[in-house]
């Protein structure tokens, strides 16, 4: 779970945080140190000799599997069949009829999956894989949002990296055409959301759903979800903090990742279905796992068929595109660019990458508790997790201004309006940034046809 992509980034970020938050107060500095538990935990990749972050921890649950019975099998029969294996039903993802099954003590999940697949009443069974988040924040201010409008400014304190003029997603020009629609809902399936954050609390559709803890309060206990949500739709033009890509869209938080930044696929599957059933127009998944999953695919199809645009981050490990982003038919897979429109070398690649969006030194919200009392609840972060919500915000603006477009058409508008910023090396669609870095102006503003 990386926040920092390199020791240099970590150092600059740390320095920036100390300068801004201290403001001459030693007490505030000590408070920040006292409250940086998550920050310390997220500096792990820095200890990894500055190498790109790679997902840590188990790839799948060692105690649970996912099973789907054939449609002709009633629930009672299914549970009886599960019990016959010495296992028990943990939960059922209704609508998709996927059973999360706790295996008996002493058994292995692999063995039970194989056994289940032999059962003629079982349509499919698989391991309950684990997806991981890939970004977290640390600092502030709107003028630092080069991703939205890049003037070639220094992105942070003097001496910080300086962007290239107009290496951005052309948000300001697009906002001339539309600032979005309050009826458009972006579901952020992540670690939750700081529901009291001053720069987003008025944009929240509801307290959402916490699949992890099985309640209806998707409060963020990690920070990642708040960061991602802020990029997509922080409250804008309110004289506070940052601007969200989709000014007027609402946020629906769905907690499918735990406080450590990991989430079982079944949480994600259930979260996708819940979001689709509860008014989401766009789903952002700034998370991913290495494993394919038929059930995850089913959930994505379910949401797609309910006219939900699904956006997911490709991943930050310089490997193949993670799931769910790799499900090309239903998901826009988003890779990263930086403040020079260059691709960072840690971005995952593959034919499934559709587009890219800025994902390096992105400023967004952090929970108010993140850096402790007296600190600004904003921070820098990077990774494709930061890229995806830029695209989700654009999808929400498109949904708002052109509600008649089909999901596949919205996806194509986003793809085809992208700027092929690496055309010198890879003309046309490529495995690194797909069609290119998104361009909100071309996607939303009328294209001039002149003599």
């Amino acid at each position, binding site marked *: 779970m990386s926040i920092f992509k390199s020791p240099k980034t970590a150092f600059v970020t740390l320095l920036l945080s100390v300068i801004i938050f201290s403001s001459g107060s030693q007490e505030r500095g000590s408070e920040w140190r006292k409250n940086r538990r998550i920050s310390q935990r997220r500096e792990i990749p820095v200890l990894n000799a500055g190498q790109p972050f790679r997902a840590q921890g188990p790839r799948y649950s060692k105690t649970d599997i996912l099973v789907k019975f054939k449609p002709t099998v009633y629930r009672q029969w299914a549970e009886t069949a599960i019990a016959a294996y010495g296992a028990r039903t943990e939960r059922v993802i209704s609508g998709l009829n996927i059973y999360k099954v706790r295996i008996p003590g002493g058994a292995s999940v692999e063995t039970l999956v194989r056994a289940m697949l032999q059962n003629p009443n079982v349509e499919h069974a698989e391991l309950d894989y684990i997806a991981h988040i890939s970004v977290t924040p640390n600092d502030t201010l709107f003028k630092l949002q080069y991703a939205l409008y890049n003037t070639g400014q220094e992105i942070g304190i003097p001496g910080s990296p300086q962007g290239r003029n107009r290496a951005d997603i052309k948000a300001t020009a697009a906002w001339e*055409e539309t600032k979005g629609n309050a009826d458009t809902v972006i579901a952020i399936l992540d670690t939750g959301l700081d529901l009291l954050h001053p720069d987003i609390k008025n944009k929240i559709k509801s307290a959402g759903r916490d699949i992890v803890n099985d309640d209806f309060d998707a409060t963020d206990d990690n920070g990642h979800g708040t960061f991602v949500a802020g990029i997509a739709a922080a409250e804008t033009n309110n004289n506070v903090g940052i601007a969200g890509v989709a000014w007027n869209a609402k946020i629906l938080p769905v907690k499918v990742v735990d406080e450590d930044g990991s989430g079982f696929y079944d949480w994600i599957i259930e979260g996708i279905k819940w979001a689709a059933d509860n008014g989401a127009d766009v789903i952002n998944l700034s998370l991913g796992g290495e494993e394919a999953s038929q059930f995850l695919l089913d959930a994505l199809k379910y949401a797609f068929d309910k006219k939900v645009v699904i956006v997911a981050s490709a991943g930050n490990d310089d490997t193949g595109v993670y799931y769910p982003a790799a499900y090309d038919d239903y998901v826009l897979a988003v890779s990263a660019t930086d403040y020079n429109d260059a691709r960072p070398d840690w971005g995952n690649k593959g034919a499934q990458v559709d587009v890219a969006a800025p994902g390096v030194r992105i400023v967004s919200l952090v929970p108010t508790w993140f850096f402790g009392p007296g600190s600004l609840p904003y921070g820098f972060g990077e990774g494709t997790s930061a890229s995806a919500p830029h695209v989700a915000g654009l999808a929400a603006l498109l949904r708002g*201004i*052109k509600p*008649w*477009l089909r999901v*596949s*058409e919205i996806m*194509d*508008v986003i*793809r*085809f*309006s*992208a*700027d*092929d910023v690496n055309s010198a090396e890879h003309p*046309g*669609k490529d495995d690194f940034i797909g*069609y*290119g870095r998104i361009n909100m102006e*071309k*996607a*939303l*503003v*009328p*294209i*001039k*046809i*002149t*003599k």
Partner: protein
Amino acid sequence: MRRSGIFAAFIFAVAFSTGPSFSQEATSNPSASGLSLKAALSGEYFARTIGWDEGAKSETSQLKAYLALAHVDIQFMRGFNVALLAGFASSDPGSIIYRNLPFSIAYGAGRVSGYLLGAEATKALFSFQDFEISVFAQFVSYKGMQKSWKIPGLAVDGIIEFAPAWTRLSLGPVVSYRRFQNFTPFLSVQYNRLAGTFEMRQTVQTLVGIEKKAVKAKSPVALLLGGAYALSDQISLIGEAGIMPYQSHLDTSFRLKAQLSFN
């Protein structure tokens, strides 16, 4: 454009080659039937404010058009003329924004050539001293030839095709002053309705969209002032200028017509 020119030349040739045969027939006993034939060529320019609904809002642009028409004018009886019109026109709809396409398009690419067909009729009603009161009606239909452009700046190839079409109906009394021998000034107030459909079709790989704008001229009334000058018994020139007020604008039109009589 070249096709339009050929078409116009064809109309011109037909008008003048068919003229004499009709005129021979007409002149065989003109006083009995009143039947006569005239051929004419006219050129016209107009600039009209057009409007269309864009959701809850109303948008406007200015349609500028150049018309070249061949007229075959048959007089069935004295004071009653009917003419068939054909020709071509070049229409520039100004700036029109199409937002109901996958990619919104702001059209500003200028003129589109097209064909014109129409008819007109004039009926003299009565005379009072040197004034003659008649009624004039004209209907013209323009269909633009589909024109396409590549959509700039996209990651993939895409085109738009633009096909404008409009019709115009003019109807109203004409007051002519016939005191002069070779020159007849006239004044007319006309109901002048111009309406059309400007269709934009977009194709960007899998994305296909069609949007039609139902446009209508904002001003339905035209005030026309003109004069007909007889160069000889057979040839006359007619000039006409018009204004069409719309709010604080004045839409304008100008027309010049050369007419050849065959009896």
